């Protein structure tokens, strides 16, 4: 027998195949899952199960281990062949737990022991579905990741606005200045700008201006002629030449020495460079994309950055928000990084516990996305369960209350704003118990009530 049904709720986008040769067990599981809103297909033997797998795309398969000629392990293998992301749950009797454990090692998501408990079925299937949907979403993101706009992960208003801006300037060849704190994805944005442009098929060359001394930077950027200095046994083109007709990304351009700034200006204005030791200019056609975490305009006023160069590179300006300004993107980013770890690691985790995700969303990330990535990668290596739990996260996220002083506009926050938020946080932590909150804050209850009134906090 093979039948499918759904009750038309939102979950019917999730397709589940149930395979069992015991009629009562099959009907029970189908009934439980249909009530949850899944679209369920039932199969009474291995042959029908394989036919169903070939005919439709399922998200989750529940299969008994012993079915006859074609057993649960064969169904597991076939399902994974057709779709490596499908989740398979093995059902087994008490005497075959060892076989079920072996099946889990072959890629089964979990196993259920008979007699089946409805809550257990619901819980394990829900976890399998969650993992499946998350991996599908990450897969879609990765499919679009070729360095284009979709490589910038996030759905918050600020990031959406940046993606739209990059899309709008796709047809332009103007130079771009990207600003933002360390770890906010400035290089990612630079690559997205390049890949959206008509120069996408030409080179993208990245240079970190802070990594080189002045002499080395000059040689790297402009190259040198043969015998220009001791050891220059042949002519060597620089990075600007190698990026010809493409884009050059100058990271930390605020750290570029003044002498280099002058030479770069010439390259941008005249579209020609002089190699070290050279006398004949060499034509270059590059788009400049620059990034900095410093206030270049202020550096111009201080005299450490050339104003004419600033205006040449700041034709289009993109500001990457700090992660604390787009906290709604944290779950998606964290899941993306976790999925990447699962793909490259030797195991797979289903996601984050509710408590772990709450901790991740509360933290302010002075190190921005790069810091979040590191935290997730560390948690992945430490996690022993199926999901990342709060205890897998670094202790300063869970035990200590770090605080980054910024306003929503990226400026430093006033002490009043900080005090208001901190008192609100302490009240939540203490369950709005005024005595405990006052004690934790080191003030008396009268003072606490005064502050609650002052900031119109919930009490």
């Amino acid at each position, binding site marked *: 027998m093979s039948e499918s049904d759904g009750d038309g709720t939102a979950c019917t986008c999730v397709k589940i195949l149930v395979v069992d040769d015991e009629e009562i067990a099959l009907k029970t599981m189908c009934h439980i899952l249909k009530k949850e809103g899944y679209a369920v297909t039932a199969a009474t033997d291995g042959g029908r199960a394989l036919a169903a797998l070939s005919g439709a795309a399922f998200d989750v398969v529940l299969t008994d281990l012993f079915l006859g000629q074609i057993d649960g392990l064969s169904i597991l293998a076939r399902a994974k062949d057709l779709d490596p992301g499908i989740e398979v749950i093995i059902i087994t009797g008490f005497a075959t737990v060892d076989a079920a454990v072996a099946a889990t090692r072959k890629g089964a998501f979990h196993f259920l022991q008979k007699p089946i408990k409805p809550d257990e079925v619901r819980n394990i299937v829900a976890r399998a579905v969650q993992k499946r949907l998350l991996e599908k979403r990450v897969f879609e993101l990765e499919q679009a990741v070729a360095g284009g706009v979709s490589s910038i992960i996030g759905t918050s208003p600020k990031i959406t606005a940046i993606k739209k801006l990059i899309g709008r300037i796709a047809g332009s060849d103007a130079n771009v200045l990207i600003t933002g704190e360390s770890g906010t994805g400035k290089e990612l944005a630079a690559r997205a700008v390049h890949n959206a442009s008509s120069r996408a098929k030409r080179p993208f060359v990245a240079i970190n201006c802070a990594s080189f001394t002045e002499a080395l930077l000059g040689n790297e950027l402009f190259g040198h002629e043969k015998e220009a200095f001791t050891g220059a046994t042949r002519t060597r083109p620089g990075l600007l030449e190698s990026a010809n007709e493409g884009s050059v990304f100058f990271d930390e351009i605020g750290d570029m020495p003044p002498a280099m700034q002058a030479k770069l200006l010439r390259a941008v204005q005249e579209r020609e460079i002089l190699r070290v030791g050279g006398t004949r200019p060499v034509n270059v056609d590059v788009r400049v994309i620059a990034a900095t975490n410093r206030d270049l305009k202020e550096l111009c006023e201080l005299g450490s950055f050339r104003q004419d160069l600033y205006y040449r590179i700041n034709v289009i300006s993109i500001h990457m928000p700090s992660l604390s300004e787009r906290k709604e993107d944290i779950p998606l980013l964290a899941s993306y990084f976790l999925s990447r770890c699962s793909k490259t690691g030797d195991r797979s985790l289903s996601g984050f516990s509710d408590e772990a995700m709450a901790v991740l969303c509360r933290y302010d990330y002075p190190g921005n996305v790069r810091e979040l990535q*590191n935290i997730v990668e560390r948690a992945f290596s430490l996690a022993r369960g199926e999901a990342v739990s709060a205890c897998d996260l670094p202790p300063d996220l869970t035990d200590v209350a770090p605080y980054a002083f910024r306003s929503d506009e990226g400026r430093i926050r006033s002490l*009043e704003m900080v005090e208001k938020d901190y008192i609100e946080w302490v009240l939540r932590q203490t369950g709005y118990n005024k005595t405990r909150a006052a004690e934790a804050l080191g003030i008396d209850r009268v003072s606490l009530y005064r502050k609650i009134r002052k900031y119109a906090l919930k009490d």
Partner: protein
Amino acid sequence: MPDKRPDGKPSKPLAETWGEGMVNHVLLVTDSAYLHEESFFFAKELAKRMGLAINVLILADSGVSSDERRRIDLSLENTAASARAEGITAEAYARFGDQASELLKYLATHSGTRCLVWGGDPGIMLEPVKKNSSHWLMRVRGELDCPIAGALGKKA
């Protein structure tokens, strides 16, 4: 600086070379020999996550006693050594004078500061702002390009 520390061992010169600040780092700042333990822990964690070095900067008033200067030297050595023991590249500096000005001078010559972690008394972050009495760090915060962070202690 005296040739020998109070324990008789020769004092090592602190890293005081200006202009070597191109290395990207977390700047851990305090204004005395006291270092808030949880802020230091947090600074180390942040440095590890970001792949950054730690520069420890003690900004003290020019009128501090010689005993306090010795304590400051020791504090710098111990802090840098503790960070290095965890595999973090660390340098330590002490500056004496107007703390706000010294901080700005430091930042002007050390462009690799990616985040400032306040390692002094965390209470200054929460004091109400009173006219002419706010902490010097709060007076210069508007000049900074990087985020300021600090640890407020163990959660309730």
